[in-house]
C-alpha cells in the first residue's frame, strides 16, 4: 500500500433526520499514512459523519469509497470487515474482564468448540502492543487500570480486528495532559505505520500538534480542508465557529478583597475508609480566582463535596465569609452564598427529565417569590427562567422542554446562569468547560471573569491546565489529597505545574511554593 493511497473517500454524503440536515453534501478524502483532523463545534455534524463511515448510520444520499471501491455499510460489522475501526468517546469495555479478554471479546479465537485460545490471542496482542507502542498489562482487570490505559485497550481492540482506518471521536476528553501527549504520539506512530487516522476534535491545540490536514465542518457542511501546520490557531477557530474568537482572557487587576473561603487542616475520608483529602489548607479572597490543578482522582471531587456539604468532613475547618460552615448541610452552604458548578453536570447539576423552569429553580424554589409557605409560584419561576435563559444565551426551544434535550454547552450555560444569578460570594467551578467547544468556552470564561470583577471569590478546579493558566490569579496544585505547592500563576511554567501534579518537586522554587 503506497503512502499516498486514499484510504477512504466520501462524495456528496448527506444525512437527514426529518427536516434536519446533519450532513449536507460532504466530500472529502482521507489518505493512508496521515492523521486527518475533523474539526467542528458541538453539533456541527462530525459524529454523524463518522457514524456513517463506521456503519452505525446509513447516509440519505451520497457515496462512500474505501480504497477506491464504492461500498455499502449496512452495519458496524461491514465497516469492521473493510478495516474501519472506531474508538468511541465513552469506552466500551467490560469492567470486570481482563484487558486480554476485552480485546478478544467478539472475535474470540478458539481451540476446539467453546474453548478460548488465550495463548495465541495474547501473542498477537502483545505483538501489536509492541509495534505501536501501546503499553498494556494484559492480565489486569479493566476496572483497575487508568483511563489512559483503557484508551490504549480500545485502540488495541480496533487493531486486533485488523483495522487500517482508525476513527477517534473526541479521544482526549477524559485524559490528563500527560496521557494526551502519549496518545498524540501514538497517533503519529499509527500513521507512520501506514494507517489512516481520523481525529474528531474541537480542541485546536491537539489538532495542531498531530494532524497533517484538517477538515473543518460547520452546520453539516465542509467549510475547508487546510494544512494544519501552516494554519494559525486563530484561523482554525474562525473557520470552525464562523466568527473571530479571542484566546486572550482579560484579567483586570483587582485589589485583594476580604477573605471568603478559608480551609484549614481539612481531612476527608470516604465510605471505604480511605483518606481522600488531608492536611489541606487554602484561602481565597474576594476578586480572586484560585485554580486548583491536579490529575483526576487526587481528592478534588471529595474536597468539593466536603466544602459543599455533600460529604462529611473527618477533621479540620471550612470557613465561608467568616462563618464556620464545617459539616453544614448543602442548603445551609448554598444559603451562605456559595455557588457550585458541579463536576458532572448531568448527574449533579441538572435533573435531565425535568423542565428548564424546574432546573433553573432548583436552588431557589423554597425562597420567596418562587414559593410561599410551601406553595410554588410558577409565574415567578417562569419569569426568572426566561430572564436568565436570554441573559446567558441558553439556546432552547421551549422553557418546558426537558433539560436533557439541550446540548452539553447549553446545559452548562444553564447551570452557570443558575449559580451566578444568585450572586454567590464564593463560586466553586469544577471543570466548567469540559467537553465544550471554543465558542462556549469563551463565553463561560467571560462569565467567570465577570464574577471575579464583581468581587466574588472563585475556586476553579480543572484538569485543563490551559484553563487554569488563562483564568487563575493563583494556582494551587493538589496531589494525593493535599496541596503540594501554590504560587502566582505566572510564576510557574506549564511543565513545572505538571511536575507538581505528578508529585515531583520543582528545584529552586520550593520556598516560593510553600510561602502561602
Amino acid at each position: 500500500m503506497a503512502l499516498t493511497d486514499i484510504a477512504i473517500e466520501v462524495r456528496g454524503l448527506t444525512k437527514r433526520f426529518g427536516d434536519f440536515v446533519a450532513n449536507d453534501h460532504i466530500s472529502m478524502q482521507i489518505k493512508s499514512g496521515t492523521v486527518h483532523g475533523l474539526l467542528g463545534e458541538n453539533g456541527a455534524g462530525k459524529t454523524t459523519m463518522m457514524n456513517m463511515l463506521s456503519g452505525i448510520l446509513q447516509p440519505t444520499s451520497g457515496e462512500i469509497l474505501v480504497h477506491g471501491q464504492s461500498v455499502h455499510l449496512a452495519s458496524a460489522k461491514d465497516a469492521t470487515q473493510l478495516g474501519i475501526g472506531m474508538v468511541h468517546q465513552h469506552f466500551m469495555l467490560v469492567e470486570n474482564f481482563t484487558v486480554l479478554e476485552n480485546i478478544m471479546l467478539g472475535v474470540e479465537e478458539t481451540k476446539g468448540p467453546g474453548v478460548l485460545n488465550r495463548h495465541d490471542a495474547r501473542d498477537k496482542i502483545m505483538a501489536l502492543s509492541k509495534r505501536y507502542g501501546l503499553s498494556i498489562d494484559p492480565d489486569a482487570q479493566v476496572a483497575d487500570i487508568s483511563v489512559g490505559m483503557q484508551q490504549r485497550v480500545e485502540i488495541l481492540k480496533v487493531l486486533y480486528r485488523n483495522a487500517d482506518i482508525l476513527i477517534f471521536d473526541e479521544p482526549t476528553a477524559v485524559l490528563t495532559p500527560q496521557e494526551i501527549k502519549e496518545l498524540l504520539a501514538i497517533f503519529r506512530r499509527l500513521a507512520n505505520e501506514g494507517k489512516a487516522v481520523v481525529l474528531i476534535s474541537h480542541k485546536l491545540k491537539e489538532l495542531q500538534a498531530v494532524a497533517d490536514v484538517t477538515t473543518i465542518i460547520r452546520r453539516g457542511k465542509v467549510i475547508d480542508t487546510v494544512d494544519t501546520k501552516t494554519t494559525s490557531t486563530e484561523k482554525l477557530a474562525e473557520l470552525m465557529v464562523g466568527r473571530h474568537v479571542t484566546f486572550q482572557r482579560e484579567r483586570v487587576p483587582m485589589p485583594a478583597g476580604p477573605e471568603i473561603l478559608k480551609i484549614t487542616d481539612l481531612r476527608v475520608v470516604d465510605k471505604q475508609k480511605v483518606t481522600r483529602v488531608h492536611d489541606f489548607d487554602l484561602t481565597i479572597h474576594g476578586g480572586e480566582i484560585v485554580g486548583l490543578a491536579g490529575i483526576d482522582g487526587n481528592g478534588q471531587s471529595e474536597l468539593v463535596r466536603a466544602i459543599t456539604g455533600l460529604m462529611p468532613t473527618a477533621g479540620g475547618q471550612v470557613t465561608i465569609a467568616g462563618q464556620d460552615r464545617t459539616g453544614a448541610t448543602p442548603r445551609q452552604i448554598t444559603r451562605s452564598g456559595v455557588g457550585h458548578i458541579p463536576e458532572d453536570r448531568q448527574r449533579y447539576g441538572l435533573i435531565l427529565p425535568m423542565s428548564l423552569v424546574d432546573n433553573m429553580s432548583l436552588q431557589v424554589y423554597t425562597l420567596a417569590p418562587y414559593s410561599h409557605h410551601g406553595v410554588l409560584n410558577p409565574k415567578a419561576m417562569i419569569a426568572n427562567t426566561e430572564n436568565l435563559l436570554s441573559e446567558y444565551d441558553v439556546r432552547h426551544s421551549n422553557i418546558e422542554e426537558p433539560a436533557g434535550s439541550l446540548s452539553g454547552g447549553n446545559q452548562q450555560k444553564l447551570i452557570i446562569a443558575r449559580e451566578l444569578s444568585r450572586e454567590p460570594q464564593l463560586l466553586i467551578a469544577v471543570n466548567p468547560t469540559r467537553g465544550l467547544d471554543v465558542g462556549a468556552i469563551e463565553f463561560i470564561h467571560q462569565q467567570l471573569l465577570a464574577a471575579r470583577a464583581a468581587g466574588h471569590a472563585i475556586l476553579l478546579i480543572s484538569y485543563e491546565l490551559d484553563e487554569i493558566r488563562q483564568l487563575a490569579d493563583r494556582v494551587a496544585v493538589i496531589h494525593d489529597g493535599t496541596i503540594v505547592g501554590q504560587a502566582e500563576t505566572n510564576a510557574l511554567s506549564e511543565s513545572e505545574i505538571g511536575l507538581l501534579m505528578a508529585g515531583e518537586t520543582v528545584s529552586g522554587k520550593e520556598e516560593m511554593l510553600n510561602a502561602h
Partner: protein
Amino acid sequence: MRIKNLRFGNLWISVTSVILGMLVGAIIMLLSGFNPIENYVSLFTGAVGSPNAIGEVLREATPLILTGLGFAVANSAGFFNIGLAGQALAGWLASVTFALAFPHAPGFILLPGAILAGAIAGALWSGIAGFLRAYFGASEVITTIMLNYVALYATNAIVKGFLAKGDGDYSPTIPVQARLRTPFLEHLTQNSTFHWGILVSLAAVVVVWWLMKKTTLGFEIRAVGMNEDASRYAGMSTKRTIISAMLISGCLAGLGGAMEGLGNFQNIIVNTALPSIGFDGMSVSLLATGSPVGIVLAALLFGMLKIGGLNISIASTTPPEIVDIVIAAVIFFVGANYLIRYLSVKLRRHPRQPEAVASDTQPEAAVAERAAQAEEEGEDTK
C-alpha cells in the same frame, strides 16, 4: 409543542394497550369457541346498561382511584410501593374499628374520624417501609411485600380475636351514621352499592394533582425520584422526601381501604387473600402512566371490565375468568409499554437508528428521543 405530542403519546400507549388486551381476549374467546362480539356487547351493557350497573362500576372504581394515586405518588419519588394492599387493609381495619368503637358518636364526627383513622393507619404502615429505606437502605420492594403479609394475618387475628362475635369471622356492621352508603344513593342507582366515597376519591385526585404540581414538597418528590444526586446537590433532604412520599402513598391506600370498610362492606371480614384493590391500583396507575386524571379514567375502565365481566357469564356460557384474562392482557401490554413505544417510533417516523441521537448532532431528533427516554425514566406527564 413537542411536550404536547408526548402527552398525546402517553394516552396513545394506554389506549393501544387496552385495545390490544381486548383483542387478545377476543382471540382466546374465539379459540375456546365463544363469540367475542356478543360477549363484549354483554360486557358493555353489564357495565353501563342500567343505573344499577353504573352505580356498581363507580363503587368499584372508588378505592382503585385512591390506591392508584397512592402508587403514583410513591412512584414519582422513585419508590415502588407494592404494599398498597397491606396499607389498604390497615386502613380498612382502622376505619371500621374506629366506627365500632364510638357507636353513639354523631355522624359528623364518626364518619370523618373513621376516614381519618383509615388514612393514618395506611400511612403508618407504609411509613415503616419508607423509614427502613431512608435510614437503612432496605429495598421497599421486599419490605412492602413482607408488610403485606403481616397486615393480612395481623388483621385476621384482630378481627377473629377482638371484633367478631363468638366464633365468627366477621365484625359487626358499623353504625348507620358511619356508613358511606345511603338510602338516597341506593334509590338513585336501583339498589347498587354505590356510596359517597367517590367524592373522597375525586377530592384526592385534585389534592394529589395540586400537591405534586404546585407545592415545594411535590417538586422535591419529583426531583428525588428523577435524580437523587442532583436533589441532594440542590439541598433537598432525600430521606425526608422519601418518607414523605411513602406516607402520602400509604395514606391514600389507607383511604382506599376505608372506602371498602365504610362503603362497600360496612364491616371487616377475615380475608383469605390481600384485598385486590392494592394490586389493581398498581395496574390502574401504570395504565394511566401516573397522571391523576388518567387514574380516574383507568379506574373507571377497570370497574367496567370487572362489573361488566360478571354479565358475560350471565348472558352466555362463557366463564367469567375470560374477563380476568382481558384485564391481565391489558396490564401485560401496559408493561410492554416499551415495546409499544418502540413500535410507535418505528411506525410514525421513517426508520431511524437510536445510536444517532446519542451524539450531539441532531437537535430535533435528539429532543424527541431524549424526552422519551426521560419519560421512561419515570417522569409523569407534564
